[in-house]
């Protein structure tokens, strides 16, 4: 018997979205040990972590496609479908950037100059923190749906997003400092290596940018 009651419920995108963000964060988190291995010139460990990052990025990608397929236009939801799809897209970009950073470093067998190594590692950590805060905020999605996007839950999530913004501002400052530190030593580096170091720093910073955009998207759902 086609049960009417059972079938009127579409596949809820909420839990899958939370799960996607979980995978994305697990992916981003790998960047710190990866950069550590780069600084230590531990090639074996680098390759190992690089393949883990790739696997997680791939997993996130598959889940993203799955969620999209299960969100047909006929779905009636408390929030616009487009907003949720956009949220999914920026979540996924966090994993993409992580993969890009590790890819450039790996592909060009890059070394991080020891003058900026500690700073860069710290910078990576802040970006991972931003991703973590984004995950924390996204985890509130199901509560938001239950509360109907009203009241105390909204305040809670707004505060989380504010904190996320602060972390992102902090990474921006770090990025400026690290760039000027690199500028100081760039003459001593191979020009192409230096160019790519700027590129890697830029890409790393985008992790926090994307995390912040996750926050912006969530905020749109609250309004």
């Amino acid at each position: 018997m086609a049960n009417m009651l059972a079938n009127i419920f579409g596949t809820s995108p909420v839990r899958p979205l939370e799960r996607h963000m979980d995978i994305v964060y697990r992916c981003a988190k790998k960047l710190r040990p990866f950069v550590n291995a780069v600084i230590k010139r531990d090639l074996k460990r680098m390759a190992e972590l690089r393949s883990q990052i790739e696997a997680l990025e791939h997993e996130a990608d598959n889940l993203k496609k799955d969620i999209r397929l299960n969100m047909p236009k006929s779905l009636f939801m408390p929030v616009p479908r487009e907003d949720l799809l956009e949220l999914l897209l920026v979540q996924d970009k966090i994993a993409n950037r992580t993969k890009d950073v590790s890819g450039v470093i790996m592909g060009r067998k890059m070394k991080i100059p020891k003058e900026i190594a500690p700073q860069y590692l710290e910078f990576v950590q802040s970006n991972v923190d931003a991703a973590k805060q984004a995950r924390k905020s996204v985890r509130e999605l199901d509560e938001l749906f239950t509360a109907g996007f009203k009241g105390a839950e909204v305040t809670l999530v707004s505060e989380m997003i504010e904190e996320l913004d602060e972390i992102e501002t902090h990474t921006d400052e770090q990025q400026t400092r690290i760039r000027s530190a690199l500028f100081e030593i760039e003459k001593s580096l191979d020009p192409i290596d230096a160019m790519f170091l700027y590129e890697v720093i830029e890409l790393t910073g985008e992790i926090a940018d994307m995390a912040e955009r996750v926050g912006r998207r969530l905020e749109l759902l609250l309004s």
Partner: protein
Amino acid sequence: MEYQTTYIVLAAAFGLFMAWGIGANDVANAMATSVGSKALTIKQAILVAAIFEFAGAVLAGGEVTSTIRKGIVDADLLIGMDDGAKMLVYGMLAALLAAGTWLLIASRNGWPVSTTHSIVGAIVGFAAVGIGVDAVQWGKVGTIVVSWVVSPLTAGFIAYLIYRSVQKLILSQDDPLAKAKRYVPVYMFLAAFTITLVTILKGLKHVGLNISIQSSYILAIAIAAGIAVLGAILISRIKPDPKAEKSQHFYTVERVFGVLMVITACGMAFAHGSNDVANAIGPLAAVVSIAKNGIIGAKSSLDAWVLMLGGAGIVVGLATFGRHVIATVGKKITQLTPSRGFAAELAAATTIVIASGTGIPISTTHTLVGAVLGVGMARGIEAIDLRVVARILISWVVTIPAGAVLAILFFLLFKLILP
């Protein structure tokens, strides 16, 4: 009238089959939410459903049964006919068989059809074509059809209001658990009060009890207060689970709503029994009355055994296949958490019980679907598939002519082969 035993046995067999089908399929809608949200285990759900479906059928199923039995076909017109009594017996048998067959076809193909729509369509069909267009009480049929639109809308509206109030009073507050413990007993009182009151006012006279309006209210308030106090005691025993709450802030709050949901599930089972039993036994009751008295329209009361048979059929269906359906549906409707499920169930149960009290056969499942949409309108449900809602509307329109055509065929067949 000759061959009366044959007619009664045939009608009882068909009626029992319908009741069994209702128990096997439709009851799941009333109970699955409680199982899905783990407010009840499957065993408890079946026990609750058995008791309250039966009680609903026997205590409050009388009005709707009498509408199906004598409200749709104009008895006066048949009295004037030579073999009017026989025609009505054939017709009711044909209607039962047609509705049962249509439900079977629909189930096999996965169409979401309603038992009520099938049986009403079938009765109207045989009466209009088999006897004559004038044999149908079109005014009454019109009322029934309008109620099919009105009941889901009403339930949806009530569900919207209830869920909005839950959001405002409990879910959007700083301390939802404390608020839930305070307000949930109030919802319990409201749920128990409405259902008992309508039952006492409209249902009990069928079992021979007559209570004055004033004492009806007092009795309903007393019962509802008792249930609310019992619920409050159960709720006060619920302790927060910090570990589970870390990943889901509403974990303990939902457990409080789980207690409430047991009560609304009882109400829903009761309401369902009161409205849907008539689909199976209304035609049976008509056949029994004619066969026993030999004439149409005799002032016979509804035999208690007929209601019992319907109630028992539902319970047997529940026990045989219902278990499986409840488990399947329960898994699929996890979105209907206790806080949402109770709002939908309470709204639907209230609407259905009131309709039962006034004798209108409505589709209980469609009413529940309307209530779920109402919760969705209150931004309460994560995702509702509107394609399925559209399919339900289409099946609504198809079921009535389908039931009618089948009933006409069976009617002509019975005229040929039955004595």
